[in-house]
């Protein structure tokens, strides 16, 4: 299989824990539909108790997914600066309750997305998107770009190591012209080296019958577990939305 060929290359794996846990074994369509429905509803909640309820659901999903919490915490920390900027500014203008609400709401949306990202193999995700009628050109580009990111990251890591081995310590200030020139040349060189390798990979794919269309790389069926996962998230999201809109009152 062509996609298996692409998928099996390279040492860099962001989704390395996906195959070890039950969440990773769910059908990508079920994960995408359930998580997106929950995120869309969580993003529009404004009543404090509902925002905290959605955060509790998001935290439960994070723990129950059985993905390594340290791995997820590291990913959450990367998203934290923008969340904190928003929360602090809302706190300054709207008081502590609104500030905390902003942090809770953004966290309730970010956590399920991180679980989806860490708990789904990249190509599962892309074939799930294709099955949801995302244009083929986008999903094929996603697949190839994901493969080339591995290639370029390895190339960049090698060049950074070589640069350090030669004693390069520049680029610590915008006024350091020499350092910035070296960084620019590094970025340019990464592109130049990768274009050649990228062409060879593509020729290899075409040799194996690749016609520019992303095919599902493994058969998958919607199981009872998939249905239960989507249903539970859709029910939670519907309840939260109903309470937010005040229909239940």
């Amino acid at each position, binding site marked *: 299989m062509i996609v298996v060929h692409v998928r099996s290359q390279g040492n860099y794996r*962001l989704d390395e824990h996906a195959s070890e846990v039950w969440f990773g074994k769910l059908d990508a369509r079920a994960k995408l539909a359930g998580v997106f429905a929950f*995120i*869309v509803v969580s*993003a529009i909640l*404004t009543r404090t108790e509902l925002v905290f309820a959605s955060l509790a659901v998001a935290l439960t999903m994070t723990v129950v997914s059985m993905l390594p919490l340290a791995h997820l915490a590291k*990913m*959450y920390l*990367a*998203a934290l600066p*923008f969340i904190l*900027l*928003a929360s602090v*500014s*809302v706190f*300054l*203008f*709207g008081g502590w309750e*609104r500030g905390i609400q*902003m942090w809770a709401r*953004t966290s309730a*949306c*970010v956590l399920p*997305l991180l679980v*989806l*990202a860490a708990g789904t193999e*990249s190509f599962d*995700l892309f074939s799930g998107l294709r099955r949801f009628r995302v244009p083929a050109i*986008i999903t*094929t*580009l*996603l697949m*190839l*770009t*994901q*493969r*080339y*990111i591995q290639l*370029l*990251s390895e190339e960049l890591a090698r060049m950074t190591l070589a640069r350090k081995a030669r004693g390069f310590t520049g*680029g*610590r*200030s*915008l006024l350091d012209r020499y350092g*910035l*020139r070296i*960084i*620019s*040349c590094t*970025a*340019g060189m*990464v*592109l*130049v080296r*990768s*274009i050649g390798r*990228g*062409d060879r*990979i*593509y020729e290899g794919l075409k040799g194996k019958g690749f016609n*520019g269309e992303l095919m599902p790389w493994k058969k998958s069926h919607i199981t009872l577990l998939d249905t239960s996962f989507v249903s539970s998230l859709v029910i939670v999201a519907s309840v939260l939305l109903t309470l937010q809109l005040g229909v239940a009152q």
Partner: protein
Amino acid sequence: MHIPDGLMDPTVSAIGWIEFLVVLGAVLLLAGNRIKEKNLPRVAVLSAGIFVAQMLNFPIGGGTTGHLVGGALFAIIAGPMVAVIGMTVVLLIQALMFGDGGITALGLNALNMAVIAPLTGWGVYTLLKTMTEKGGGKSSAASGFVVGAAAWASVFVAAAACAAELAVSYAVSSGAYGIAATVSVPAMLGMHAVIGVGEGIITAGVLAYLWSVLPDAITSASPTRKVLPGLRALMCGNTARAVVAIIVVFALALPLYFLYASAGKDGLEKTMENANVAEGEPLIVSPFSYGQDYFSALFAGLLGFLSVALVALGMMKLVRMRGSRGTSP
């Protein structure tokens, strides 16, 4: 600049999604053919390159760092339409695989970094390049300056759009979402004015390297797909296309602007009211009005914007025709 879920007002997020899907649909229709077959791996390598380049942080002072956005770099290398598709792929991977940027906010993120940044960068680059070449400036320093300025403008305008979206969210939701303009505008613009300098220097350096080492790595930036004859005639020059790119960037701001627009009196009306001066009967009564609700105001705004843009493009075309007639033997 990656906006997470839950930060933006739902209306603002929905407008972002609608605008992004319209632009993406148009771009796929016009440029989809260009990235099939041979160009596919090149576009994917460029997308991956921009993704990895975004991992290269550079210092901006005060202990903080910035990173490349890459919209201008992508657009100058591959053309604005291919850049829109490529940057969209980068943002999708960041959101779905790294949780960087939200799902409900993906429309706005894509609008800022995959549409506004490449179009602004390419528009400014093309206009400045034409101006400097006409002025005789073809040196590598002039070329570096043009690329640097375009990259800076792309980051700054994208940051301004992001700040405006945050401010509009805050205003329309009475503080439940977004960030107040008094915080978002100076913070985003101040920080990205400096980040833009780094972006400009690195983009100029990368392109100088690419042009000297591998000039044929650059994919064709000229469209191959046939468009309507009239439109084609109007958009035959790079300058006209650059103007159109910048006009599109401004047009994208309209739906949000009308959401933020106040029904209050303007400065002259307020002054007239303070001075007890009444407005007289107009000599000509226009069949159009600015509208009373959001959608009629938006429609009137789009109509006006389109009319002004078409008149401006037509005038440019006339000036060019007169110029070419004047230089012909």
